[in-house]
């Protein structure tokens, strides 16, 4: 983000996941000036972490990296990464937005993404892109497909040994970089801040965090991806090639018994709704696992299989015919097998027989659901950006104008308004762009 950026935009898009990128691209293609604000070091959102995507099984990176480079390259789009929205105030029909760009300690204009610094850095930290299943360095590029592909230092972890500075040929490292405040003015705002994944520790019965071979589905997507953290598809407990994998669907969804589901207080102590994506991503992973580990048994424990979109039912039937085992039953508890094997015992009620059963698996995947990520509403200070009962951004005219929010000129796209898979997120982004463009047009005439 060069110093001399203009500070007037037709639209500010908050959140650079697939929905934010798609909205920004649509508006930019209509010749509107767009600022895309992303809190992480790269755009891409959850999608860039995925392996392949249902129902077409295209590689997620192949679909999303060209989109990312198109977004980054578009002459009408300015990217602002590692940036927080501090405040949005509506005055005289436009929005005054205060932003804070956190320092990455590496000069974006100079860094070539060569990763020399990363090789020499002695400090190993958790790699959040790989759901903490592996380490990366205190200085590193965010991930191999990041856009922009520029290193950053995790200052809290840095040892200040200056090894990185020594090897950096273009002299891009700047330990004294400071946060920067920026004020921009926008005609419209699009909220595309996406969703949070349910934290499986909040369902203690399933043993996540206690037993290393209980993982969540995002970790499994990472394990299957070509950019996987390990040399092969292995379980994190001891590097074994898994051969008997269980999926527990609806973990943290359709469940009114979870305390503190959304990380806030009593008001959100359960998550009654369905997450809409987890049945399908589990079926997808099962199909991919059948390909990667032809001898493995895969069992999916479910309540209802929600394969509702175009081609989805067919995709579900295909998984069945490939030999994926579907069992209707609610899993009550996961416990470790007492033989130090790292294997796990699942206790569940089998609906088909009405019996309580126990079975052994060597890897358990929790199909965690979608929770709102709407902290952004707090930054709208002089008008209230309302939430719905599930704490997603409220759609005030859900049937006829699904992108409208409680503030005129603020639109919502993607999962910020409720659970959605990628095709639905993209359509909702297109519709937000249409609403926003129609709105902006009023002012330009």
């Amino acid at each position, binding site marked *: 983000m060069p110093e001399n950026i203009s500070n007037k935009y037709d639209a500010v898009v908050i959140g650079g996941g697939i929905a934010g990128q798609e909205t920004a691209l649509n508006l930019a293609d*209509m010749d509107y000036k767009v600022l895309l604000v992303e809190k992480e070091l790269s755009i891409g959102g959850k999608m860039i972490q995925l392996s392949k995507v249902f129902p077409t099984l295209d590689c997620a990176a192949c679909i999303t990296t060209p989109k990312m480079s198109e977004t980054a390259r578009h002459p009408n789009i300015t990217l602002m990464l590692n940036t927080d929205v501090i405040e949005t105030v509506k005055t005289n029909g436009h929005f005054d937005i205060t932003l804070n760009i956190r320092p990455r300690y590496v000069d974006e204009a100079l860094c070539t993404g060569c990763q020399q610094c990363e090789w020499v850095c*002695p400090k190993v930290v958790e790699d959040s892109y790989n759901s903490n299943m592996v380490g990366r360095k205190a200085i590193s590029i965010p991930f191999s497909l990041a856009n922009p592909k520029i290193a950053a230092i995790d200052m809290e972890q840095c040892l200040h040994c200056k090894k990185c500075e020594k090897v950096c040929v273009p002299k891009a490292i700047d330990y004294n970089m400071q946060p920067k405040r920026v004020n921009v003015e926008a005609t419209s705002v699009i909220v595309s801040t996406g969703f949070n994944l349910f934290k499986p520790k909040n369902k203690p019965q399933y043993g996540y965090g206690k037993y290393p071979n209980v993982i969540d589905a995002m970790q499994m997507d990472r394990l299957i991806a070509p950019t996987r953290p390990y*040399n092969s598809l292995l379980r994190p407990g001891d590097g074994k090639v898994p*051969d008997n994998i269980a999926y527990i669907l609806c973990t943290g969804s359709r469940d009114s018994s979870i305390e503190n589901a959304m990380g806030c207080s009593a008001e959100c102590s359960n998550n009654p709704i369905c997450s809409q994506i987890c049945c399908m991503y589990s079926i997808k992973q099962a199909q991919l696992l059948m390909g990667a580990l032809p001898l493995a048994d895969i069992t999916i424990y479910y309540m209802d299989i929600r394969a509702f979109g175009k081609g989805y*039912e067919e995709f579900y*039937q295909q998984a069945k015919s490939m030999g994926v085992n579907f069992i*209707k039953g609610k899993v009550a508890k996961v416990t470790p097998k007492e033989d130090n094997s790292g294997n796990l015992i699942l206790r569940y009620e089998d609906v088909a027989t009405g019996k309580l059963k126990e079975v052994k698996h060597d890897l358990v995947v929790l199909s965690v659901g979608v929770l709102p990520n709407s902290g952004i509403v707090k930054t709208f200070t002089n008008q209230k950006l309302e939430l719905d009962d599930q704490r997603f951004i409220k759609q005030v005219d859900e*049937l006829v104008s699904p992108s409208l929010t409680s503030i005129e000129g603020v639109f919502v796209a993607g999962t910020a308004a409720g659970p959605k898979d990628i095709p639905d997120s993209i359509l909702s982004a297109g519709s937000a762009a249409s609403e926003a463009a129609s709105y902006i047009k009023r002012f330009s005439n």
Partner: protein
Amino acid sequence: MSPLNDDKDSITSSFYLTKQTSFRIAMKQRIGVYICHCGGNISDYVDVEQLSKLIANEDNVVISKDVMFACSDSTQKDMVQDINDQKLDAIVVASCTPKLHTHTFRNVAIRAGLNPYNYTQVNVREQCSWAHSDKPMDATIKAYGLIRAGINRVKYSEALENIEITAQKAVGVIGAGISGMRAAVDLARMGNHVYLIEKEANVGGRVAESGKLFMTGENGKDVIDRLYKRIKEIPEITVFTNANLDKVSGSIGDFTLEVSVKDEALKLNVGAVLVTTGFDFYQPKEGEYGYKLSDNVITLQQFNKLIETSNDKLVYNGNAIKSVAYIYCVGSRQSKGENKYCSRQCCSAAIHSSLNVHEKFSGVKAFHLYRDIRTYGKQELLYTESSRKGDIYIKYEEKEPPAVEVKNNKTVITVKDYLTYKKELSFDVDLVVLVTGMVPRSDSNDISSKLKIPTGSDRFFNEIHPKLKPVETVIKGVYIGGTCQGPKNITESVQSSLAAASKINTILRKGTLELEPIVARVNAETCLWCEKCAAVCEYDAIKPIESNGKMIAQVNTSTCVGCGICGPVCPSNSIEIVQFTDNEIESMIDGFMEKAEINTKQDSQENEISSGKQIKLNGFPKIWREIASALDDKTLTIPQLSEQLGVESNVLTWHLMTMNRYGVVEPAGLDEDEAYYMYKLKK
């Protein structure tokens, strides 16, 4: 209009370029070649330094360089300077896939004043270093061949101009259901004229016929009235009802829609077409769950009407209704039948109807015979509410569907309940409601054949790609929205038609359109108009035209997508694709097959330092050093290492995998049981 400019090299501005003319193209004489390390992605396997030296000896190559990142700003600047200083007339970049950076390097060419089509991208990453990381020598040989092929191709490259066409800032929206009406509003607000063409006498489609709608509880008719009122206030929208689309001609930017409205025939000139023709309800067959055999078996639509029109008491055929059985998935999810798909909205619709019954009438018992309840997302709240109200849910499987019979004037249902270990239940109800799904409209073939929209295996209109081009069809300028593409609820239908409105506005907003010039062209001298090419063209881009007293093929450059299917069928070799001419392709093959003499990479260890992989473990976590010394002279599995070092196996996995990632250790095959990998130090 010419697809090509009258550039000196590419000779003529005639529409029918001949093969001979392509021979006359001056071969490029001053070529610059850039081979990318991609920060090790390529250079770790392909010996790019040696290749750049070898390539320097190729004919017509004046510059050959290996660069760390071809796409980086600094390299791009160098290229611009080279083009200017060395008067390059073509460039080749050997790096990653053209999907990623074609535009990047075309722009480099443009900035340097070179025609962007005098540039060729060679993929030595995805198609070479990554694919053959196990055989660096072979990868280098292959890269050599690919680059030589690219050089040969660029020698024959022609300077091309994009095809610019004027675009009507008007859109034809076919079907005035909620999707079409809603898209019309935004298309007009964004500055386009809209012709909203409706077959029926009234606008509003299925929503106008509906009562209370989920998830908001609004009334369907009110929603449509409100929207129609808005439409009437927008002068840029012209609504035609009782209108029939007779014929479509033209192409993107300039379609002509022939529409008859009552007795009047209209010709509408539009830049794009949005199809929002909606769906039909599945019609149960006679006898399907007792339909038409018993008076007490009706569809969900009939039932909804009944709820709407009944007051105080729910009465059907004079009988008070005290119990209702809903049978789900009627006409959907047929593993053996025609409709394999799920109709997406019917679970929610049926449960919503049941809730409406409870709200309006008291004491009606509801049985839901379902396969999976698909109240996805927030619609789950409907399901929870219905369960709370005491509705009974019974799960059946497709192979054992419920039976509906009339016995002693009673409608009796027999079903095996998979929720109570397949116990057979038999009970009678006052009314059976068939939860019927969505099917493509009976007249959808008419629309799809007039507009040439392909349909999928589900017989709904097909998008190009569900994620990349979800509202686009293979016909440029023709878009689809709402349920004609597949089952959707109201919100989803509106979202898809508005997404289409967005895309349409991006192409029409300027009044002109630019298309890539990579299209077919015909040799006017040799073409005999045998029609073979026209017969295989899926885009209907080839039409006959008279030229010099005979008929020949003519390519419509705005509809041709350059797929190339016409080339091989031509018996006289008279049609070819620009940028994929015989000269280019044949010379590429020659280049690739040329003998390659490569030296084995000298001291590859030394080279690894250049990609920074050789690291000393001083200052690194203690466990790294412990693992490294344990693996110093042997290979071990994670459990073995974990035992030897007394470290928990998950912690060990984490560190060992990090070391693997940073090139300190590497896998050395699976152990005997094929359960664990063994690891060794990377030398």
